[in-house]
């Protein structure tokens, strides 16, 4: 890809990611035989939130939302520039920690519950993310995304890693059955509860960037076969939304157990397999 294309992909990331979110809402509606909102709905929401009277609980709380959004944006830039996989995982961890601090910087009890649950979610999916990157390293021999994307595709030897990624995508993008950290109506959005008007938009847009982060791992699995990578991302998008529509939210403690046990088993099979057949 030329430098200009990469630059545009980075700068326009929140905009095309919003279409990703719009497509997700339409897809979910179609699966339930509804008409669903228009594709541009995230933009309408953004304009509406910009038009509301600004609400701020305290300055720290608001600043953390901005930090979270921009850290994720830098993270997306690092992905497109082909940086090391481990840097990206730890930068994502930093972004999540900022979000948790935001949750603890207000008095609302629901915000605190949301932060606690987000911490538990990190305990669940962060080790799996690391194991996934180790699994990719065992097959492709490097952590550098730019090198992986120029190596011949070895997707079949990463099939269990693929299942592990499918397992943790709902936890990262807060979809059912692993949406306990957000838990709409139960704890009213958790960390999001105290944000209003334009400042909520940053958290809303950060959700789209998280989606890019999560699905980029699937794209990386396909190596230099970019058409297969795109197909794989679209298929996983369908699969994740199907799971989201057909399952109910599970308890946070069950979520931690399920993700850790299943994720470690899946990744271990893949890593051991690539050790034995190397």
């Amino acid at each position: 890809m030329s430098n200009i294309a990469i630059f545009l992909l980075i700068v326009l990331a929140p905009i095309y990611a919003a279409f990703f979110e719009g497509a997700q809402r339409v897809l979910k509606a179609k699966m339930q035989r509804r008409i669903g909102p228009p594709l541009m709905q995230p933009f309408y929401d953004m304009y509406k939130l910009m038009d509301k009277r600004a609400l701020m609980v305290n300055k720290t709380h608001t600043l953390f939302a901005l930090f979270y959004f921009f850290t994720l944006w830098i993270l997306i830039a690092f992905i497109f520039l082909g940086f090391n996989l481990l840097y990206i995982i730890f930068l994502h961890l930093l972004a999540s920690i900022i979000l948790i601090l935001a949750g603890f910087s207000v008095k609302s009890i629901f915000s605190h519950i949301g932060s606690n649950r987000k911490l538990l979610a990190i305990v669940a999916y962060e080790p799996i993310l690391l194991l996934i990157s180790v699994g990719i390293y065992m097959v492709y021999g490097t952590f550098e995304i730019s090198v992986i994307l120029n190596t011949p595709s070895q997707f079949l030897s990463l099939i269990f890693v693929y299942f592990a990624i499918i397992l943790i995508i709902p936890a990262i993008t807060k979809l059912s059955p692993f949406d306990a950290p957000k838990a709409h109506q139960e704890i009213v959005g958790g960390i999001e509860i105290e944000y209003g008007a334009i400042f909520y938009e940053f958290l809303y847009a950060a959700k789209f960037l998280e989606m890019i982060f999560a699905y980029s791992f699937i794209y990386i699995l396909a190596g230099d076969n970019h058409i297969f990578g795109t197909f794989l991302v679209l298929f996983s998008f369908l699969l994740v939304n199907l799971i989201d529509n057909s399952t109910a939210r599970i308890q946070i403690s069950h979520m931690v157990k399920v993700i850790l046990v299943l994720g470690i088993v899946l990744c271990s099979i893949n890593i051991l397999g690539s050790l034995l057949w190397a």
Partner: protein
Amino acid sequence: MGLEKYRKKSPWILHYNCGSCNGCDIEILAAMSPKYDLERFGILNNGNPKQSDIFLVTGPLTYRSRERLIELYTAMPEPKVVVAVGSCTCTGGVFSDMYNVENGIDSYIPVDVYIPGCAASPELIIDGVVKGLEILEKKTKEIEKPKKLLGKLDEKEETINRTRFAGNILGKDDETSN
């Protein structure tokens, strides 16, 4: 800025039950369900006052729920629209003049749309919300105050404290009911 026209494209709803029999609440949930599919207009049942535009209230307003009603109303950022769903919320309905009930919510907060019916049907609720959207489009961002409020809510101040307004409205009534 010309952003007013997008208000009606993504109205988020806050639903509060101040002593309703649950009839109207079920009808509101029915209007959200796949059959009527309110999401096709961008409507979401948000449940968070700080991110909502439309305040759907059901119930005749019992003494115990007045405080919450005013807290929720003041926590919503302007522009906002209040829709009273059902006969109880408009006038008190079958509960009117009972010892523990205020007759409707409009003696406490300004109401923009009244939806009659016991219980109001989903079609009526959708019509009422659409009527509310027309009003929402014309509203300004000026602070809207509840009718009974002993806290301070002044736009001229640098920071506006929106919490703990309703603490004083109970006063004597509450002591006697205990």
